[in-house]
């Protein structure tokens, strides 16, 4: 790997890590306001019917955000770790991408249904958009391409 590529990749990785931290920080602040504002649009309406279900959806949403952030951070850290060895492809990231392929559509589906958590009424509709499917397809393509590149890099490494 060339020096310029190495530096560019390192900058991209650091920016990605900053982005992930900002993402989590934003949702941490938002969580505070959603839980403490009391009642209204886009916040938890305490005392409304089916609070258990609403809080469960809200908690699942925050957990899936943390999980995605953790997976992405681990992916970037792994790239930074292996980069000094001359490769950005490693087995740990192959596994992480497969896990993301499953977690990302679930995260998207829960996100689409956050209106349930913030609803004040007893009645609500489950929303199913194309987002989870699009996310799943994109994640699958990325995971497959990374796996192919990893296999090629491994083969190259074992060519003496």
């Amino acid at each position, binding site marked *: 790997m060339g020096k310029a590529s190495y530096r560019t990749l390192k900058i991209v990785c650091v920016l990605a890590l900053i982005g992930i931290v900002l993402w989590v920080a934003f949702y941490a602040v938002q969580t505070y306001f959603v839980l403490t504002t009391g009642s209204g649009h886009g916040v938890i309406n305490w005392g409304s019917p089916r609070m258990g279900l609403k809080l469960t959806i809200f908690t699942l949403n925050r957990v899936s955000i943390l999980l995605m952030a953790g997976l992405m951070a681990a992916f970037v850290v792994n790239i930074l770790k292996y980069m000094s060895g001359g490769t950005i492809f490693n087995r740990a990231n192959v596994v992480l991408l497969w896990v993301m392929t499953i977690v990302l559509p679930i995260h998207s589906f829960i996100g689409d249904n956050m209106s349930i958590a913030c609803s004040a009424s007893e009645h609500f509709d489950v929303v199913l958009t194309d987002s989870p499917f699009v996310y799943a397809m994109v994640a699958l393509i990325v995971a497959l391409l990374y796996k192919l590149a990893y296999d090629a890099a*491994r*083969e190259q490494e*074992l*060519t*003496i």
Partner: protein
Amino acid sequence: MIVINLDVMMAKRKMSLNELSERVGITIANLSILKTGKAKAVRLTTLDAICRALDCQPGDILEYRNED
């Protein structure tokens, strides 16, 4: 399957891994990968250098064994 008989040739020529590594110009780690049969492929230039260092033919290093 292809079997690498590098260790046999090295023993015949009484050459250590270290010496072969210096003569061929590849690392001991890579020579070990080759010697233990973990390599996926061998470059012709590497084979050429090994044959020159060990004064042998490619057939002395590479052997085909029928797995059946």
